[in-house]
C-alpha cells in the first residue's frame, strides 16, 4: 500500500523547488518507505487504530469542484476579521480568502511555496532542521511532500498586535483526498506572536486525510502562544506533528484542542535547548460517537534551569476513545529542571475509555518532576448542588462539563483568543449562553 505514496512522490512537480530542498524531500521519502505506516504493534501507536486509514488509497487533494467562499468559512471563523489570516483550501494557498494587508514591516505571513521562491535564504536554515529522529513516519511522509503550507516570520524585537490565523480547510467533496500541509513559524529574538492554527472540514462526512507538520523555532527571549484547533469532519483522519525548538529565555505556550476527525493524532514535541527556557502545554480533547482522539507530547529538558508545565484534559462521550502519552526527558546536564505534567479525563458515558501513560525519563539528580493522571465521571456532589438550585440534571451535566474544560481554557493568555475558544467549546457542548 505504501508504494502508492512513492508514485505520488515521483509525480510531484519539481519546478520552483530549490536545489537544497530536493534531498530533504528524498530523505523524508526514504525514511517513510523504510518505516512504513505504524501498526498497533508499534508501542507509540498501540491505541491508535490506523488500519482503515492505511488501507485507503488516498489521492492528492485537488481544488474543490465549487470554489470555497468566505461564507462557507463563516461557521469556522475564529477571531476578528481584521486579524491577519492565511487560508489554505485542500492544501493549496487561497490568497483570495486570506488577509495579510496590515502586517507590520518585516513581518512575513505567506505561503511556504511563495517564501521558497522569494526568500529561500530565510527558509533554508529552519525547514526540516530541528525535526529529528523522533519524527514519526507520518512526519517523514510530510517532508517527502513539502510543497505548500504557511510561513510566518516575526523579526527580532517585533510584537504583533493581533493574532495570526492559519486556516486549513478541507472541502466537502474531499472524500478520499489527502493533504500534507507543511508550516514553518520563525519567531526571532525578543519577538512576540499569538498564532492560531486551525484545521476545519466543510463536509460532515468527507473521509479525508490530513497529514500536517508545523515547525516552530523560537529565538532568545521570544514569546509565542500557539493555539491549535482541530475540527475536521468526523469521518476524517487527522495526523499532526508540531515540533518546537526553543533557545534561551524563550517562552512557548501551546493550547491544543482536538474535537474533529474519526481518528486524530497530534504529536507535540518541544526541545528546551538553552537554560531558563519555559514551555507551557495545555490541551483539550472532546470526543463523542466513535471518535478517537490521541495526543502525544514530548518535552526535551536538555539544559539546566528550564520549566515545563503541562495540563491535558479530555471529555469523552458515547463510544469515543482518548489516548494520552506524555514524555519528559531530562538529560544529565539539565539540573534544576522543574517539570509538571497532569492528564485528566472526564468520561460522560460507560462506553467511553481512555488510555493514558506518563513517561518520565530523568537522568539529572537535582530536579523537580511530577506527573499525575485522573480518569472519572462527574462528581455527584456538584451535580446535586446545581440541582438544589433549580437547575435540571442535563443542564447541570452540561455546566459541569463546561467547567471541566474552562479550567484549562482559562490558561490561554491572549484574551480574544480565549474568548473565541470559549465560544467553540460552548457550541460543541451545546451551551448557548455565555458562561
Amino acid at each position, binding site marked *: 500500500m505504501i508504494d502508492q505514496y512513492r508514485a505520488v512522490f515521483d509525480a510531484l512537480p519539481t519546478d520552483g523547488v530549490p536545489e537544497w530542498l530536493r534531498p530533504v524531500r528524498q530523505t523524508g521519502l526514504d525514511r517513510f518507505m523504510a518505516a512504513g505506516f505504524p501498526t498497533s504493534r508499534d508501542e507509540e501507536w498501540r491505541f491508535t487504530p490506523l488500519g482503515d486509514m492505511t488501507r485507503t488509497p488516498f489521492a492528492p487533494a485537488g481544488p474543490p469542484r465549487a470554489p470555497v467562499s468566505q461564507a462557507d468559512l463563516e461557521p469556522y471563523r475564529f477571531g476578528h476579521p481584521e486579524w491577519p489570516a492565511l487560508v489554505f483550501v485542500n492544501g493549496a494557498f487561497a490568497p483570495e480568502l486570506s488577509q495579510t494587508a496590515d502586517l507590520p514591516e518585516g513581518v512575513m505571513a505567506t505561503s511556504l511555496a511563495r517564501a521558497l521562491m522569494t526568500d529561500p535564504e530565510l527558509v533554508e536554515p529552519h525547514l526540516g532542521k530541528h525535526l529529528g529522529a523522533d519524527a514519526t513516519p507520518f512526519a517523514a511522509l510530510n517532508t517527502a511532500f513539502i510543497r505548500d503550507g504557511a510561513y510566518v516570520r516575526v523579526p527580532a524585537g517585533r510584537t504583533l498586535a493581533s493574532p495570526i490565523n492559519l486556516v486549513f480547510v478541507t472541502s466537502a467533496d474531499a472524500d478520499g483526498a489527502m493533504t500534507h500541509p507543511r508550516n514553518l513559524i520563525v519567531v526571532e529574538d525578543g519577538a512576540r506572536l499569538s498564532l492560531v492554527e486551525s484545521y476545519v472540514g466543510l463536509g460532515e462526512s468527507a473521509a479525508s486525510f490530513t497529514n500536517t507538520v508545523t515547525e516552530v523555532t523560537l529565538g532568545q527571549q521570544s514569546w509565542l502562544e500557539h493555539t491549535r484547533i482541530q475540527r475536521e469532519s468526523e469521518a476524517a483522519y487527522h495526523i499532526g506533528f508540531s515540533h518546537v525548538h526553543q533557545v534561551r529565555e524563550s517562552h512557548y505556550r501551546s493550547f491544543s484542542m482536538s474535537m474533529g476527525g474519526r481518528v486524530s493524532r497530534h504529536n507535540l514535541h518541544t526541545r528546551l535547548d538553552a537554560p531558563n527556557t519555559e514551555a507551557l502545554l495545555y490541551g483539550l480533547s472532546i470526543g463523542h460517537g466513535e471518535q478517537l482522539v490521541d495526543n502525544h507530547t514530548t518535552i526535551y529538558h536538555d539544559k539546566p534551569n528550564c520549566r515545563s508545565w503541562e495540563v491535558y484534559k479530555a471529555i469523552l462521550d458515547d463510544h469515543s476513545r482518548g489516548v494520552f502519552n506524555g514524555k519528559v526527558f531530562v538529560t544529565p546536564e539539565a539540573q534544576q529542571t522543574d517539570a509538571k505534567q497532569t492528564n485528566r479525563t472526564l468520561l460522560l458515558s460507560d462506553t467511553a475509555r481512555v488510555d493514558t501513560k506518563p513517561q518520565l525519563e530523568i537522568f539529572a539528580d537535582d530536579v523537580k518532576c511530577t506527573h499525575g493522571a485522573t480518569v472519572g465521571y462527574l462528581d455527584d456532589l456538584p451535580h446535586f448542588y446545581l440541582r438544589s438550585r*433549580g*437547575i*435540571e440534571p442535563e443542564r447541570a451535566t452540561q455546566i459541569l462539563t463546561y467547567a471541566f474544560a474552562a479550567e484549562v481554557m482559562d490558561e490561554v493568555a491572549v484574551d480574544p483568543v480565549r474568548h473565541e475558544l470559549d465560544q467553540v467549546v460552548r457550541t460543541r457542548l451545546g451551551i448557548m449562553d455565555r458562561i
Partner: protein
Amino acid sequence: MLEIKNLCASIGPGEPNILKGISLTVNPGEVHAIMGPNGSGKSTLAQVLAGHPAYTVTGGEVRFEGEDLLDMEPEERALAGVFLAFQYPVEIPGITNAYFLRAAYNELRKGRGEEELDPMDFLDILEEKLKIVKWGPEMMQRAVNHGFSGGEKKRNEILQMAVLEPKLAILDETDSGLDIDALRIVADGVNALKRPDRATILVTHYQRLLNHIVPDQVHVLFDGRLVRSGGKELALELEAKGYEWLSEVAEEVVA
C-alpha cells in the same frame, strides 16, 4: 407550610436509620431551630429535605404546601421554594458566581413562565442582593466557592438565598466556622429576608446564632429523634447544660 410525619432515612437501602421517625410542622413566618450534638442526624434531616441522592427515605412522609415533597426531584423542590444552605458549599472551578446565580435565577423564572434575564438585567438584581451580604461585584467574577474562605462560602450561600427568595430556607450549620463579624452578616442576611409568608429552619450546634436570629421554636434532635421542643429559652438551657443529659431524655422518649 411544611409537615414532616414520622420521617425515617438511612444512607442507603439496608443501612440502619439515621433519622428514626421525625415529626415536625413549620408554619409560614416561623423560624425553627434544630439543635443537637454531632451525629444526631441534624444535617441528614436538612439534606433529605433538599433531596440529597446519598440518602434513602425509609419511612414517613413530608408535605410542602400540601404537595408530596419526597416525590419531587431536587430541582423541583428548589422551584417549589425550598432552599438548602449547604454546610459544606461545593466548589465549582471554571464557573463564575455570576453565571451560576443567573442560571439558577433563570430556572426559577422559567418555572414561573417568565422570560429569562440576560446578564445585564440580572446585574441590576444582583447589585441589590450583594448589599445584603456586604459584597462588591468583584466576588461575582470568581469561580463558585473556589478558593473561598469558610466564611465567604457561607456568605455565598446567603447570597444565593437572597437571589432565589425561597419560601422555606433550611440553613445547615451556616454558623459553624464563622467569626463574629461573618456571623453577624449571615444573621442580618437571614433576618433581612424574613417575611410573613416565608419560613426558616436553622440547623445548628451552638446557641450563639440564636442571639442574632430569634427562633419561634427550638427542637432538640438526639440519635435520630426529636426528644424535646420548646421556645427560645430551650436553646439557653442546652447552652448551660450541654448535650450530655439528653441521653436520659432520649431513653424516656423511646420507652
